[in-house]
């Protein structure tokens, strides 16, 4: 009886694996077909070709999308790390007037639902004259969540360590850089991964704030390429695969960090 149940559960798990992965397998298979037989599901290797990938990378605006995505995601990670580490350090280890109150105010901004303020955010950014600039894509990326994570990580560092560095004559900037940051590397990595993922996959904000091809990012290419090539399935799937792969490769390399980060981000409220 127990063995039967165990077998049943195993079969069920295999079903889950299939349900989660088959659409992506379909995406990759389709992207390897030339367009005429994109719905032809024969698995013979000789009909597979990288033709679709050659086609999209020959398109200068697609290459532009790709470069833009990389710029936005990488700059977003650095900006988030910079703002979160400095603020986290101040809130965790420095004494100043209003420490707790300012921190609470920052944390309260996490309660503001991000998609709900899209229209007003657009008007704010437009008022600053930032429509179709990288500033508009990158600057709104950091959130109070990063500050929260870095503060939590830094609270665990013993004060004696910082005090002895201070006695040695280190400035607070130096203490942050050479004592604190090396100790919170793990939290920084987790935060970077999640910022990268969020920035890379972001669809709504770039859609709203960019109108020129020169500033658009990869997820948007999926909607524009379709219009350009009149529903070319193979081409769309190649584009989807290119959008999908970087986070996927990151995930394979840093699986445990991804999971820790997901578990952490669930505890934010």
């Amino acid at each position, binding site marked *: 009886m127990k063995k039967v149940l165990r077998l049943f559960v195993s079969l069920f798990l295999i079903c889950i694996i299939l349900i989660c992965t088959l659409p992506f397998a379909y995406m990759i298979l389709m992207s390897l077909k030339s367009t005429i037989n994109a719905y032809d599901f024969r698995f013979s290797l000789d009909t597979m070709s990288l033709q679709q990938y050659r086609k999209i990378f020959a398109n200068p605006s697609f290459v532009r999308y790709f470069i833009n995505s990389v710029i936005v995601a990488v700059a977003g990670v650095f900006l988030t790390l910079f703002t979160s580490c400095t603020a986290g350090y101040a809130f965790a280890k420095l004494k100043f007037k209003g420490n707790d109150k*300012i921190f609470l105010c920052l944390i309260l901004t996490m309660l503001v*639902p991000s998609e709900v303020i899209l229209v007003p955010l657009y008007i704010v950014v437009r008022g600053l004259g930032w429509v179709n600039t990288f500033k508009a894509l990158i600057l709104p990326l*950091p959130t109070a969540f990063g500050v929260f994570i870095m503060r939590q990580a830094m609270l665990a560092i013993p004060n004696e360590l910082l005090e002895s560095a201070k006695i040695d004559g280190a400035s607070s900037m130096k203490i942050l850089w050479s004592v604190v940051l090396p100790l919170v590397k793990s939290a920084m990595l987790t935060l970077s991964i999640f910022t990268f993922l969020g920035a890379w996959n972001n669809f709504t904000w770039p859609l709203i704030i960019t109108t020129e091809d020169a500033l658009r990012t990869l997820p948007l290419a999926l909607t524009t390429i379709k219009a350009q090539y009149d529903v070319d399935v193979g081409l769309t799937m190649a584009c989807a695969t290119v959008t*999908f792969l970087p986070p996927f490769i990151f995930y394979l390399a840093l699986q445990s960090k991804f999971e820790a980060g997901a578990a952490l981000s669930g505890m934010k409220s």
Partner: protein
Amino acid sequence: MKKKKGLSVLVPYAYITPISLILLTFVAGSLIIAVCFSFTRYNIITPAKFNGLYNYQKLFRDDKLRICIMNTLKLTVIIVPLQLFTSTLFAVLIAARQNTFLGKLTKAALFIPVLSSSAVVGTVWKTILNGGHPVVRAIFGIFGIDPTMLLGSSESAIVTVACIIVWKGMGYYMIITLSSLMSIPDNYYEAAKVDGANTWNQLTRITLPLLKPTLIMNGFLATVSAMQIFDMVYTMTGGGPSMSTTTMVMYAYQLTFKGSKAGYAMTVSNVLMLMVLVIVLFQQRFMRRDASEI
């Protein structure tokens, strides 16, 4: 000496300035703009004109808005229980075989939809369902479903979109649940086994009660994100067919960029903001009461 000390008082403020400026500009600024402009007539191009409570009165006469509120609530009501059920079920099943190859593989597979862009998920599913591929037809045929009708008819589109959103998110909630499952001490289960409790009893008497805070948390996160769905709907149905999947965020988007009624769009955003706020307050109460029970 004194001057130096005077300056060093400012150092901590310098550290918190960058993030404060960002949040002040983008979050607080947006909130203020949303409230101010909701009392105006504004089309993003010409300057805003104050027109008092007109937009708020309009809310009650807007049949389209009523449909969008219903769609948003429908999505929430379908997504949240389904999301909680699947993620908890998978977390419990995976926890029992954490160290086996199959367990690890399932955990990894569940995470793949989580880390892909909703644009990718939307496009791929749309292609699969609309393509009419023989293999896809055959698979859905087992359940007696015509895949091309799933997103194409106004009755089933919203359910289909909801299911795909659950599919995308279940790995995320599963990981949160799994990590709190792992923190339940083993000796609880050992003691239960000594008392002769079977697997089902252990699940209902130990695991689920101890998971309760996590489940409430998950339910809350799922609710807040379900209420502001935009990107998945945009890429899969564009709000159609015949407004059957237009959510409130999507309606605000359309009002601003297609209907040039940004002032009214912000009134709609504010309504949604209030709805979410009510849920947040409700959840806070719920969590606190739950914590005091223990």
